[in-house]
């Protein structure tokens, strides 16, 4: 949390005059259930990325790589939409490691790297 400012120093009416700063507001602490992805099963179709209401699906080079747990609320939409059932929800209290770790319970190294995003049939 940044240093708190006095009433003379802040914009009136609770207005925020800066774009995109919601990223700095850590809201993942509300979460009860944590999504985890099995990268041995995941086909990188990115439907979870498309539907996540909080933009918490990390994607690199067209591949789903895990979660932004600083903002994920644990809503479970990604689990519901996943066509290959690669995502599971576990109780936060039973999650391994720190709050920002453990997005993948299997690495997916068994599978060959896939080019591009989306599409594809069930591969696991």
């Amino acid at each position, binding site marked *: 949390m940044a240093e708190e400012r006095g009433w003379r120093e*802040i914009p009136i009416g*609770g207005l*925020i*005059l800066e774009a995109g700063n919601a990223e700095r507001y850590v809201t993942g602490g509300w979460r009860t259930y944590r999504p985890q992805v099995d990268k041995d099963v995941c086909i990188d179709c990115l439907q979870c990325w498309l539907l996540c209401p909080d933009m918490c699906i990390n994607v690199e080079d067209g591949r789903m790589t895990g979660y932004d747990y600083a903002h994920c609320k644990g809503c479970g939409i990604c689990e519901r939409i996943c066509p290959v059932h690669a995502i599971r929800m576990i109780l936060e209290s039973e999650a391994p490691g720190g709050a920002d770790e453990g997005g993948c319970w299997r690495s997916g190294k068994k599978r060959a790297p896939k080019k591009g995003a989306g599409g594809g049939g069930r591969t696991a």
Partner: protein
Amino acid sequence: MKRTLALTGNESAAEAMRQINPDVVAAYPITPQTELMHAFTQLVADGAVKTEMILVESEHSAMSACVGAAAAGVRVMTATSANGLALMWEIVYIAASLRLPLVMAVVNRALSGPINIHCDHSDSMGCRDSGWIQLYGENPQEVYDNMLQAVRIAEHPDVLLPVMPTYDGFIISHTLERVDVIGDDEASAFVGEPKPRFSLLDIDRPVTYGPLDLQDYYFEHKKQQAEAMKRAKEVVREVGEEYGARTGRAYGFFDAYRTEDAEQIILCLGSAAGTAKAVADELRDGGRKVGVLKLRMFRPFPAEELARAIGHARSIAVLDRAEGFNGVGGPVCPEVKAALYKAGGADVFNYVYGLGGRDLGPDLIRSVFDDLEAGRADPREAIHLGVRS
């Protein structure tokens, strides 16, 4: 060019709105406000104003649309009465909290129930702590004058708070009186162009309205609102003086009528002041030292100025056109008593009158002055003036 017209209170409010030419008006009809919006929507249909008129499905939607439009950075007005204001409730507070300079005419009407369409102040008094500036008008002339001034007060950079000019339902809204109207060019010059500091539509300077505001900053934003309300006093004074210089009709926080040497004073708001002043004149002719303090601005409350203006009196009757249901009387009297706490020894009595449009005639006003002179009233509890026993 100045004109003299015969207008009802609703028509004079519509005439002011025609000259203000607001960018957006969102409203829902409710008696006795309806004729105001009839007249204004006719102006929109005739192309006499460039206003975007939004006909909504409820007052909650009306105020919501007004908040959205004001956040977009344009000049916004609306009007309502009684239950319509009650339905707006949530958004009334939000408009003030977001510091949006809306102007909403409130045509005072008794709140249900039992259902009633006539005047009392229970509607606007109910939202006295919502963060809106409140100006009570006595007659159609003051309605017109207050509407024009309200725009300037609301949009002043030291204020940026919504303003509620109010006037008594039917007694003022539907009564035809002489109204002096300034020229369209003069009115435009007086209200000026809106200069919004922020706009939701400005993509080069994006702004977020209404984010979550918890223990860390909510209190600071409320402090800002409280300070803005304090600063509004000076702005109301300045705008009232400038309006007076332009029109010959200057306005302040209140109108002190024959109070300077008065021993008994009646304090009231709105149309009751006309009757009270007429009775005061009559009693003055008989040698009695009586006066009337008509409070124009209830929010912010001009406590210090009021104490200076009436603190010398021996006894004061505060007339409330709303019951506070607090066991001690109406909403205005406790604030007057607090203002006078260190001002001297005036006895202050509370009269609740005129609920649901019950008439306040000269005889009742005379009985109040008589009570004050004879020391007959009980200062510990409110007297319900004109109720049958």
